[in-house]
């Protein structure tokens, strides 16, 4: 919000430069920047929401600056001449809604509408307002001074009531009622919208915008000036509903002090008389529709030190509070503190204590080590588990990414019905590009591939994060996912086995036993509609995650050419499987003997079956390790050549060559029965 530095200087008479003042305001009130209009300095203050009500006028800010500079500040008293004729004899005010808390009006006759004097125009422009004519400008000027929005009606355009008085009625809109505002725009109203009306029609949208009906024009001579207070929440709602946000509505939303109305209307009368002449009728019409809640807060002297952590002297406390406009009554052990009415943000001890600390300077006050007992923090197992997985995946040479949690309308379209139906949608997306919460990490990963194939031929990415869906009560689930992609396409799908190897590696690192989970095809999982083929890991009957190859139409949609493998594993069930305590295995006492076997066999015999066959056929077998798979030109169609390391060991003796030969023969025989041709 813009404030004129010169204007403030007139009001407070300080010596500080604009830069110095901006620095002080930043440290004691709110972030402030200096700019210039010509040679005139403008302070742009990012007012905090709780201080708009009392600092949004130059008077309020001057009072705050005075407090910061350790000075007092007195509001100037309005001075003007009144006529003998009373305003009361001409106008009457009726408040019909609780949303209007106070309404004050004055009448001025025989004003002359014209262009404003230069000084007035400059002040408005410095504060970001456009000059219109002397009357409207005076109202804006008075608002800039006091913070109270003010409005001027053309007296003659307001209807007489039956008693031959101009009656102003503050009421809520009737169903279907409409108002045309000053910029000639019609608005359809609801029953909660507050209006300023005469007996015939609405004159203004209360607290937001004047209406066309009683608009000033160049011939206007008789005017009514109003200064009112409305309920902030009501104004906020109406402004939101109508999409009409104005300087006035913004101020009212922040709950202005109802007592400001009477003062502001007098300030305005004085300025109008100054710039437009005219005769001010005697007295103001002032209707009060609220009971002011004056609060008194008792605060023990011991509370200050306890809350702030350092002690402040009584004198210092009282002095600072008075500078801020609080009234203070001193008792033996406590203070009775009465906050000024314009500080509706001060409700309790902590608020008052905080104000004193603020005026001492948050940057100046002491910083002290807590005198607390040592509490040993509990380990967050889940957090540490995720961090551990990240470290391991890095060792597997993967790059960690943080993708967006949102996906696009187009992303949705590629998903099958069952996935679409559990998608969580945003009610107010920023654009079609980000309108649903991701149900899987896959879609954004596929975008990553395309983006990065410009710079590299192979991609290995992982992410640990949330996926979202309506399927569970929590609606979100932490997963760790990864994508491997290579530009060149090889039929054997080695990336799938690389991905599988990574998952198996992690599972082994976690000390999870092979019997604790099972592997099935993905066909029966929901992932079957996004993956071409792959494996599903289950714990009992619960899906732990999948490793697989995305469907071709997905790759096509994201312009991915080449080979891709993907996985997505749920973190919580994986963590539940982790073996916390791992036991050491004694080192073997006798040497191992390693033999190799190679054979040609039909491809449709699963490796798992072959491994079992080998293991069950011989004794002393410690490990069987597949080290080469070959399928190619020299082999008959549908066959492949497999090579295994066979590791023999006994825990009781060193095995002799003849003993191993005997076992090898058993293995050959078993393999031959499977249809293997030993090479």
């Amino acid at each position, binding site marked *: 919000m813009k404030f004129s530095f010169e204007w403030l200087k007139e009001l407070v008479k300080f010596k500080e430069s604009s830069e110095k003042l901006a620095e002080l305001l930043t440290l004691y009130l709110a972030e402030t920047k200096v700019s210039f209009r010509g040679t005139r300095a403008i302070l742009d203050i990012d007012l905090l929401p709780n201080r*708009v009500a009392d600092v949004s006028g130059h008077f309020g800010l001057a009072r705050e600056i005075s407090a910061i500079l350790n000075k007092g500040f007195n509001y100037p008293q309005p001075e003007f001449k009144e006529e003998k004729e009373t305003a009361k004899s001409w106008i009457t005010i009726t408040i019909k809604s609780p949303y209007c808390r106070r309404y004050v009006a004055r009448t001025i006759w025989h004003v002359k509408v014209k262009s404003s004097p230069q000084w007035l125009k400059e002040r408005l422009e410095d504060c970001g307002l456009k000059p219109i004519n002397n009357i409207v400008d005076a109202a804006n000027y008075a608002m800039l001074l006091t913070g109270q929005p003010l409005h001027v009606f053309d007296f003659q355009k307001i209807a007489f009531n039956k008693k031959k008085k101009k009656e102003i009625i503050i009421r809520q809109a009737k169903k279907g009622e409409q108002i045309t505002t000053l910029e000639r725009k019609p608005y359809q109203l609801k029953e909660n919208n507050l209006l300023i009306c005469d007996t015939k029609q609405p004159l203004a949208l209360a607290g937001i915008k004047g209406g066309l009906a009683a608009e000033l024009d160049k011939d206007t001579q008789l005017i009514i000036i109003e200064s009112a207070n409305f309920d902030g929440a009501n104004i906020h709602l109406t402004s939101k509903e109508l999409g009409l946000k104005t300087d006035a509505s913004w101020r009212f939303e922040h709950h202005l002090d109802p007592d400001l109305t009477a003062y502001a209307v007098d300030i305005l009368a004085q300025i109008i008389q100054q710039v437009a002449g005219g005769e001010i009728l005697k007295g103001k019409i002032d209707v009060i529709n609220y009971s002011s809640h004056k609060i008194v807060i008792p605060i023990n002297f011991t509370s200050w030190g306890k809350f702030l952590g350092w002690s402040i002297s009584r004198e210092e406390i009282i002095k600072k509070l008075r500078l801020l406009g609080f009234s203070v009554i001193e008792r033996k052990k406590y203070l009775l503190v009465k906050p000024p009415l314009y500080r509706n943000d001060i409700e309790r001890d902590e608020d008052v204590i905080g104000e004193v600390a603020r005026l001492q300077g948050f940057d100046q006050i002491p910083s002290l080590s807590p005198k607390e007992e040592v509490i040993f923090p509990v380990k*967050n197992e889940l957090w540490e588990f995720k961090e551990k997985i990240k470290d391991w995946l890095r060792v597997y040479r993967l790059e960690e990414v943080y993708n967006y949690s949102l996906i696009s309308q187009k992303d949705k379209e590629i998903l099958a019905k069952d996935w679409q139906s559990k998608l969580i949608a945003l009610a107010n997306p920023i654009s079609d590009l980000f309108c649903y919460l991701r149900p899987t990490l896959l879609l954004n990963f596929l975008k990553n591939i395309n983006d990065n194939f410009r710079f590299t031929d192979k991609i290995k990415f992982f992410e640990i994060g949330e996926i979202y869906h309506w399927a569970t009560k929590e609606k979100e689930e932490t997963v760790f996912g990864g994508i491997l992609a290579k530009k060149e396409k090889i039929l054997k799908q080695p990336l799938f086995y690389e991905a599988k190897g990574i998952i198996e590696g992690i599972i082994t690192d976690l000390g999870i036993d092979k019997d604790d989970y099972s592997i099935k095809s993905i066909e029966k999982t929901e992932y079957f509609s996004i993956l071409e083929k792959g494996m599903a890991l289950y714990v009992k009957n619960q899906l732990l995650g999948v490793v697989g190859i995305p469907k071709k139409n997905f790759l096509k949609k994201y312009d991915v050419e080449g080979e891709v493998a993907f996985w997505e594993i749920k973190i919580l069930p994986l963590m539940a499987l982790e073996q916390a305590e791992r036991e050491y295995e004694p080192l073997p006492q006798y040497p191992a003997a390693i033999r190799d076997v190679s054979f040609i066999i039909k491809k449709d015999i699963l490796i798992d079956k072959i491994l079992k066959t080998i293991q069950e056929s011989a004794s002393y077998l410690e490990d069987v390790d597949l080290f080469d798979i070959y399928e190619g030109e020299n082999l008959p169609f549908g066959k492949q050549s497999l090579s295994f390391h066979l590791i023999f060991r006994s825990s009781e003796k060193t095995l002799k060559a003849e003993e191993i030969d005997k076992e090898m023969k058993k293995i050959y025989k078993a393999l031959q029965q499977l249809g293997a041709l030993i090479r």
Partner: protein
Amino acid sequence: MELDQIKAEAEKRVSQIISQKDLENWRVKYLGRKSELSLFFDSLKNLPFQLRKTQGNKANQVRQFLFSLYQQKKQNLEKKQSDFESFDLTRPGEKIKKGHLHPLTLVLREIIHSFEKIGFEVVEGPEIETDYYNFDALRIPENHPARDMWDTFWIKSKVLPAQVGKSQKSKLLLRTHTSPMQIRYMEKHQPPFRIIIPGKCFRFEATDVHHEFQFHQVEGLMVGENISLANFKFIIREVIEDIFKHQVELRFRPSYFPFVTPGLEVDIKIKSKSNDEWLEIMGAGMVHPQLFKNIGYEANQWQGFAFGLGVERIAMIKYGIVDIRLFFGSDIRFLGQF
């Protein structure tokens, strides 16, 4: 040529050789099939037996001598070669491929590590929140301008007919800050405690160099019988200085958040950058007593502070990143740098 002459010449020549190629030429010349020595052997068969024997012996000795010269020279040359050619210190080392953690992970770890040193515990909360926890419980009522400080993504409700009445009560949204977890945690724990809550947050905001609709915060909450504003300053100063290895200046100034009183903002300035601006990194304050009351804690017994630290902001300052969008762009040229 006499044998002695061959021997002397070969010996002289070999001492001048500096390359393998010259040595090979030398070998061909003195020991090859067409060498003078070889010709000499060939000529022996025409000599009488006795002479043949003595000359033969002598020639053999010469050949052995030359061969040993050759061997020796060869070894010398190889040794020299490995000293000067194969061991080049300036040759680049083999490139070892490795993976990388995301800069936000690295920065989060540093932040958490610093807080853990002084006994803070890590707690996490849901990203999909209710308006109760995100706003109302934090004293941010509807139709209050304070709520405008948090531009919100609302979730399109998926209401089953039976739930119509209920769902009106709490609307779902993407949390705009990590603060709702303050309430969730306090509902289940009694003070004293000190926790930090790292997590992803969302704001309804158009994306540009400085703004992202998705970002990370680390919330903090420390409550005890006597946790004061001075303690807040101490702990934040220590931790921020630790995170930035004491290369940083801090500034505390007033701010406003409905769930604290008084509210503060913390700015930092990097010492090494002389004319740098103050950068906002944290909103904070003393926990509003109304929160304790709503939780059901005993009145006037507990006090403490809360704060919210911007993680991207810290990472940008630490690494000199100027465009916030890089964090979520998953560009391998960016990721590979950390």
